[in-house]
């Protein structure tokens, strides 16, 4: 009986280790190739770690390529999207959490539907609409599109955070003469700060990963976001794996930082989005 239990514990730990290995291996390999000097890349093909590691690829990518520009563009787009979406979603999430009003059912249904239908079918019409406005090949255009795509999900997320705060708080403030908006701004929002941080993190990650619309809307190098830059790099210099993977590691950094920020709220975020990756 005792041996049986020990066996179960060992099997459990081994299974967990197998999952961790599967989850981390691709990222490990990315890092490994990124630090492998070119002369060792082919001779030491599948060794787990090169006999000599160097940062030359990172050095090249940071100083002699356009990746710092792509990185900055992606930061601008994802950062602005995250801030604007969080502001809009705080307002609409608060309305869904606190008010009962005509049309609320339809608003919720509309927002749920936007999570279900294939966004890829909007690629062509959005290009046609933004083109005469000068918003193609522009970071502003991307921010507008990403903001709209992320508002519904962020609204549900913020609503779930507001639902967790007792109504009595702003009712007390309103009896003291504050308007509802003042109560919202000065009492409820500060209490929701962790939720606001989580929403910022979720939206930032989503905008940072978006691929199809940035490929369609952006063409020049100057306005390219990270995915656009990386993919054009892949097709142009398909031989320099070291540099590509060094660039890949760079793309991973903000995603990992934000992952740490939102880790505690993963469950809330995924259930609010329901269908969102």
């Amino acid at each position, binding site marked *: 009986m005792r041996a049986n239990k020990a066996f179960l514990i060992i099997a459990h730990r081994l299974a*967990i280790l197998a999952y961790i290995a599967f*989850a981390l291996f691709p990222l490990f390999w990315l890092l490994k190739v990124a630090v492998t000097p070119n002369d060792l890349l082919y001779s030491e093909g599948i060794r787990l770690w090169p006999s000599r590691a160097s940062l030359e690829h990172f050095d090249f990518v940071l100083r002699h390529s356009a990746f710092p520009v792509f990185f900055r563009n992606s930061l601008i787009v994802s950062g602005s999207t995250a801030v604007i979406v969080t502001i809009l979603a705080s307002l*609409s999430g608060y309305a869904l959490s606190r008010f009962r009003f005509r049309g609320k059912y339809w608003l919720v249904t509309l927002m749920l539907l936007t999570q279900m239908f294939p966004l890829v079918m909007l690629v062509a*019409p*959005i290009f046609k609409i933004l083109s005469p406005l000068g918003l193609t090949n522009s970071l502003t255009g991307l921010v507008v599109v990403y*903001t*709209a795509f992320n508002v519904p999900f962020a609204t549900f997320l913020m609503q779930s955070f507001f639902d967790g705060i007792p109504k009595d708080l702003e009712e007390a403030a309103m009896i003291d003469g504050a308007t509802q908006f003042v109560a919202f701004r000065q009492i409820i929002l500060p209490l929701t700060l962790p939720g606001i941080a989580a929403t910022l993190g979720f939206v930032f990650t989503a905008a940072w990963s978006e691929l199809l619309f940035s490929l369609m809307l952006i063409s020049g190098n100057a306005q390219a976001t990270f995915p656009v830059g990386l993919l054009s790099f892949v097709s142009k210099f398909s031989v320099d794996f070291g540099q590509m993977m060094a660039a890949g590691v760079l793309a991973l950094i903000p995603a990992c930082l934000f992952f740490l920020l939102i880790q505690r709220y993963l469950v809330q975020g995924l259930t609010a989005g329901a269908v969102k990756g």
Partner: protein
Amino acid sequence: MAYAARHEGLPAIRPPLMKRIADASAPYLYTAPALILIVTVMLVPLVLGISYAFRDIQLLNPFSGGFVGLDHFRALAQDQAFFRSLRNTLWWTGASVFLQFAFGLILALLLDKPFHGRAVAQALVFLPWAVPSFLAGLNWAWLFNPVVGPLPHWLFAMGIMSQPTNILSDPQLAMWGPIVANIWWGIPFFAITLLAALQAIPRDLYEAASIDGAGPLQRFLSITLPFLAPTIAITILLRTVWISNFADLIIVMTNGGPADRTQIVASYIFTQAFKRLDFGYASAIALVLLALLLAYSLLIVILRQWLLSKD
């Protein structure tokens, strides 16, 4: 608003007209910015896109734009690549959802009981979820590439492959590339949602069952599964829609090739719009996809009604 209701019994302090108008419009003011954005950036293009399906819209042809009726749909009925992409979509979605779910459920069960280092293990196994999809795609494409990746060499050494080649360029096997990447990327989603549902099961149920002499398998079948069933059903149904529309990995890893063997409907739409700049045809395919998804959703609703009426 909640306020007005509470004071209704006291007509003496009925608020002035301006205040009542302000109160009544408040929820609309709060939701207006989000709503306006959704309508202009999602609904208007959706309607426009539906109209494109019946028009000849090619970006590089300034004389295009005319109404062509059902021409795109007639072309679509003859388009072998489209029917192949339909079959591929079924295969891609079915394999991805099933394997993501199976591995995600096992992971959730493994993480359910407290053990030393659980928080760290959890953070590490959920990390792939945070990896941007384009990077996940590139990363796996590199792993499958015999020049820099170890996978072909390992498969060769294990005798699974006759020589270390890239499965992404093998028409028979190419679809497995994006599917494996999708599994890696999607396990955390299922694990996170199922783990949350698992932890909501009252613990004393298990104790009572073991006192009554139920074994681990019996406890799993008669307590865990029934409690998880609603979460499993809803996540699988929603995830199916999401994954069938999810083209990022395929576009990054194979671009639909070799010879359209990995083209799914969503990536086919994107290719028509992005590579061939044929917005009309792309919109026609999109309309068909939308109709199929609507039919699928309707089926779910009917199934749910039927199950409810049976109880």
